[in-house]
């Protein structure tokens, strides 16, 4: 199996998945309490149920029985309690800690061997989303006394060997608790820093599965019966970000103009090779409250010119900072520069390498880019739109919106929460700072004899890297 984006900083430590290669390995080594299935619906995992009471300030987790860690120890509620404490320990600086920060430190209570109760400082209706997320801030369950040097989980595969940034060899967990899988005896994951090296490895039969096929290579694969293309529609988005607290983007007319400037259809064709769909500046398309009924924004040069004129920004210029921190960002920025020039707007492209981007430009530049996977709305706002969010790229601060969203975090009724999400999205559509031009498809490839890998809306490659599903047909 060929992974991209590995590095010497790769780690199996459940406290964080820093690279995509980490997500791939950790999703096979550990399990979660719940998990999103390929249709982006929450399914039980190690927990049979996760239920709210007392207005979503108390969550009760009931574990399934008979689950064993790789070292033979039985899974109990004490392990799950340890997991939450491990992630919340400030020394570990785990990314998941921000999502769990409302847990009352004294409110982690082991009720019995298989029941754990968590008390929150304030209502937290999206807890199920948090524990089902399979991405970099996933909650991966570890045993009490966990030692990252000897990583033990309950996952479908056990570690045999691991060389950061190079490769790892996992073997099947014979005592796995799920009935469907794992099927393959060994799982070898190899890092390829270079996109073409990864594709070449597939074409010369060195790997059976490839994560994240570059869009421009799609035709080669489609034409070849030896491979199957896994084309997944996702909710992942790579928007442009406008800082709403500084000129010129503090003026909503300028933001509206920029949102009408981008040719979304052309973006999807050029940047995603047609493998994606046009978006309408809002995100979280699989959220039950997604405001799909809002009129689709189209490119409108006359309107752009008139809005900019009203704002006194006719023929304006701005710097657009881009970086290859996620695939497709730089091509999108290049395309945007072209499209802007049609309306007399001059965008100066500044491309910097990733470490420079995050240390000097991210969250700072008035006009830049970001990247996010599939999320439901409220969970996503925790990352980048709330006052205490770590990554508020657009410096969004809207009281009316915040009131609605806070109500959403308190609302346990799914239908009512969806209504609140819809209202919040409408506000963001009217005056937000994201230019979300599209949701991209994830393209993965497996050899014709690899079965079980299916399209996944979650935005993580190869069915969220759940290789327990995979088997080889003869």
């Amino acid at each position, binding site marked *: 199996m060929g992974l991209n984006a590995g*590095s010497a*900083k790769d780690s199996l430590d459940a406290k964080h998945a820093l690279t995509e290669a980490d997500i791939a390995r950790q999703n096979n080594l550990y399990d979660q309490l719940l998990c999103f299935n390929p249709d982006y619906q929450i399914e039980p995992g190690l927990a049979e149920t996760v239920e709210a009471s007392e207005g979503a300030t108390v969550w009760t987790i009931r574990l399934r029985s008979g689950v064993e860690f790789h070292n033979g120890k039985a899974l109990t509620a004490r392990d799950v309690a340890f997991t939450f404490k491990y992630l919340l320990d400030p020394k570990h600086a785990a990314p998941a800690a921000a999502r769990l920060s409302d847990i009352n430190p004294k409110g982690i209570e082991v009720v019995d061997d298989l029941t754990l109760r968590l008390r929150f400082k304030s209502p937290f209706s999206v807890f199920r989303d948090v524990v089902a997320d399979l991405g970099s801030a996933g909650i991966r369950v570890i045993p009490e006394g966990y030692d990252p040097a000897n990583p033990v989980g309950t996952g479908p595969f056990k570690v045999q060997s691991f*060389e*950061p940034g190079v490769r790892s060899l996992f073997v099947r967990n014979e005592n796995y608790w799920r009935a469907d899988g794992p099927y393959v005896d060994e799982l070898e994951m190899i890092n390829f*820093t270079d996109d073409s*090296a990864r594709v070449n490895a597939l074409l010369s039969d060195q790997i059976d599965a490839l994560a994240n096929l570059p869009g421009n290579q799609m035709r080669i694969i489609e034409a070849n019966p030896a491979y199957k293309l896994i084309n997944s529609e996702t909710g992942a988005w790579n928007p442009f970000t406008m800082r709403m607290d500084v000129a010129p983007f503090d003026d909503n007319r300028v933001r509206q103009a920029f949102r009408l400037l981008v040719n979304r259809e052309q973006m999807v064709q050029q940047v995603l090779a047609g493998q994606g769909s046009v978006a309408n500046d809002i995100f979280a398309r699989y959220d039950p409250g997604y405001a799909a009924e809002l009129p689709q924004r189209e490119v409108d040069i006359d309107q752009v010119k008139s809005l900019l004129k009203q704002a006194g920004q006719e023929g304006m210029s701005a710097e657009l900072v881009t970086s290859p*921190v996620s695939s497709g960002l730089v091509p999108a920025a290049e395309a945007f520069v072209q499209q802007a020039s049609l309306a007399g707007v001059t965008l100066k492209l500044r491309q910097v390498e990733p470490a420079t981007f995050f*240390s000097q430009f991210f969250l700072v530049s008035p006009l830049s880019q970001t990247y996010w996977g599939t999320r439901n709305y409220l969970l996503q706002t925790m990352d980048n739109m709330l006052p205490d969010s770590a990554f508020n790229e657009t410096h969004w601060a809207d009281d009316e919106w915040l009131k609605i969203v806070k109500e959403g975090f308190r609302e346990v009724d799914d239908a009512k929460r969806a209504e609140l999400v819809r209202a919040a999205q409408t506000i963001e559509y009217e005056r937000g700072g994201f230019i979300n031009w599209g949701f991209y498809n994830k393209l993965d490839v497996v050899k014709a004899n690899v079965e079980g890998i299916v399209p996944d809306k979650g935005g993580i490659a190869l069915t969220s890297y759940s290789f327990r599903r995979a088997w080889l047909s003869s």
Partner: protein
Amino acid sequence: MARMVFQRFWTGFFVLFLVSVCVFFATQILPGDAAQAILGRDATPERLEILREQLQLSGNPIVQYWTWLSSVLQLDFGTSLANGRPVADLLGARIVNSLILMGAAALTGIPAALMIGVMTAYWRDGVLDHGVTVVTLVLSALPEFVIATSLILLFATGIMKVLPATSTGSPVLSYPLQMVLPALTLALAIAPYIIRMMRATMIDVLESDYVQHARLSGLSERKVVFRYGLVNVLGAVAQVAALQLAYLAGGVVVVEYVFGFPGIGTALVDAVGNRDLPVIQAICLFIAVFYIVINLVADALTAFANPRVRHAGR
């Protein structure tokens, strides 16, 4: 002779010191530090602070350099900032892999280039000579990644599927086939210059008086070419071959990257991205040592081949 080697040895040490200073200051200029590079987008102020403390990144850079230098003098290269493993463990296997790769490229490329050089000089202006001239010109005009990609297309993914296109990270000697294409790429990169130098020098020698004399004395052509011709060319060609070998240490970075070969090249690219200073320093020092040693050996060879230089120190 011994004094020359001794002197060069100390100059070499001084050069290494300068290299380490340059690398250190170059990495200080790079925006962001290891903590930032490791965390990427997750670099919230709190997490940065914790990680910086764990990695001991805060503090005076000059003091940091001094600490590093004094442990290197005791042959302790420190631990990688990216994953906390000792640099020596991390790079040991990779250095061996790269040396094997460069060795394979040199051992195939240089003798073949020397032979072809002699042949084109001997049968100059023939079909072989013209053919070789065209091929070497084309090869020397192509960047390595183009040669690499063409070889992959030819032998691994397109026309024939006989060799692996990339390395899968397993130790080189456990699966030597993964080395064929990268070694061939490097050999093709260094051969053209050696061929052309060899040809030019050999032509000079073959037209020299002593070769004419040897011919007139009735020696066989083989003896003329190999005993009188080749021996006198080697001194000059040793310098060229050394330059090309030294070039290999740098060229290997690009070629390893294209083939995903687990050597120092891929490690260097990754370490720069991670701002992993101890690893960057160790790799640069290794490449510098390689340059110095190769040049030293070449000078010694030249001196040995040339009686005037050989006896000059007396």
